[in-house]
């Protein structure tokens, strides 16, 4: 899976912030603890926060929790 790797500072800038009407950023960590966002959020960050579009990187999610 591909996603956009962001810095901790960028994560802090957008976390819990509105990305569009009725939508919010939700950065998540990969298996290594690095922060990522996905397509719609990057589009919003580029458009509304003036970010340069990051290069897509491999995103490996943390070990999935068992389905109970």
């Amino acid at each position, binding site marked *: *899976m591909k996603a956009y790797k962001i810095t901790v500072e960028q994560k802090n800038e957008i976390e819990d912030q509105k990305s569009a009407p*009725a939508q919010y950023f*939700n950065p*998540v960590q990969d298996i290594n603890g690095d922060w990522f*966002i996905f*397509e719609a959020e*990057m589009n919003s960050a580029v458009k509304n926060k003036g970010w340069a579009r990051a290069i897509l990187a491999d995103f490996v999610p943390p070990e999935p929790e068992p*389905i*109970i």
Partner: protein
Amino acid sequence: MAGIRKITISIDGSEEFPNSALQEIYTGLLEGSHTLTAKAYNASNTLVSEVTRNFTVSSLYETETTDFMTATSTPDDANSSIYAGLTNTNCWDLLDSVIKYFKANNAWSEIIHWHPMFGGSAAKHAYNAKDVNAFQMSFFGSWVFSASGNQGNGTNTYGSLGFNPSVNSVVTNAGFSIVYLSNTDSAGTLGCGDIGSNNYYMQPNSGGNFRARIGDLSPAAVSQTTSIGIYTASRNSAILKSYKNKIEIQSTSVSGGLPNLDFYYGARGGTSTGTYDDRLQGSLINHTGINPVIIQEGLRMWEEGLGRLTI
């Protein structure tokens, strides 16, 4: 189109003038205040009598229909909607017919919220048709929105509407319904739970199985071949019943209560948040446990009417 279609004028209560041209003039007369004037002329074409009456045309739509369509910026006109073959007015009529169906079958008062996921944006999918000012949905992460519904990415997406089962429902009369419009993965879930004795969640396709819990974790999974369909979990007293496409697929005794947690759409809130959903989703309703089949039939009318569900 709301308003009146026809006006007739009578003299002494017997003679009408259903003049087609006159009727045509008034076709589409909209709700609001109007003035009707009748004038009588003699053979010399001199006005001999004139009667004026003010009247009011009430909307034929339910208040909730008008509120929802207004909130979603959908005009009541003959222009094409984003739904194939449906004008905007067709969409008004469809929503209104479903709300009237719920009301006629005593289910509307049992519905706590209904998100029809109508239109092609998060802002429109956020609205609750029961009360557009309550339980508005906030979408977190990178969702994709379209006329066909909304789809998470399976990783960081969920929706929150401020619904807490222990606050907004009661365990002896609780239920919720979801429409799944695709069968793309095996991890769909919604609701919340402490993964102890207080749970309120559903997994329409967990490893190929359906699972719903309102209370403890005892209900077993139910095997199924596709997750496309309309699902309801409904609890009355100590019995949990689950339905798919108006057919009961599980009935089992349960204990436990409702979690004091935020209900998630497309994920599970609380302990062990579960896997985010990446399946295309339509209507979401939280309701009481009284009328699950009525709820499902109303959702079928809506989703099939929009052309996005065939079951």
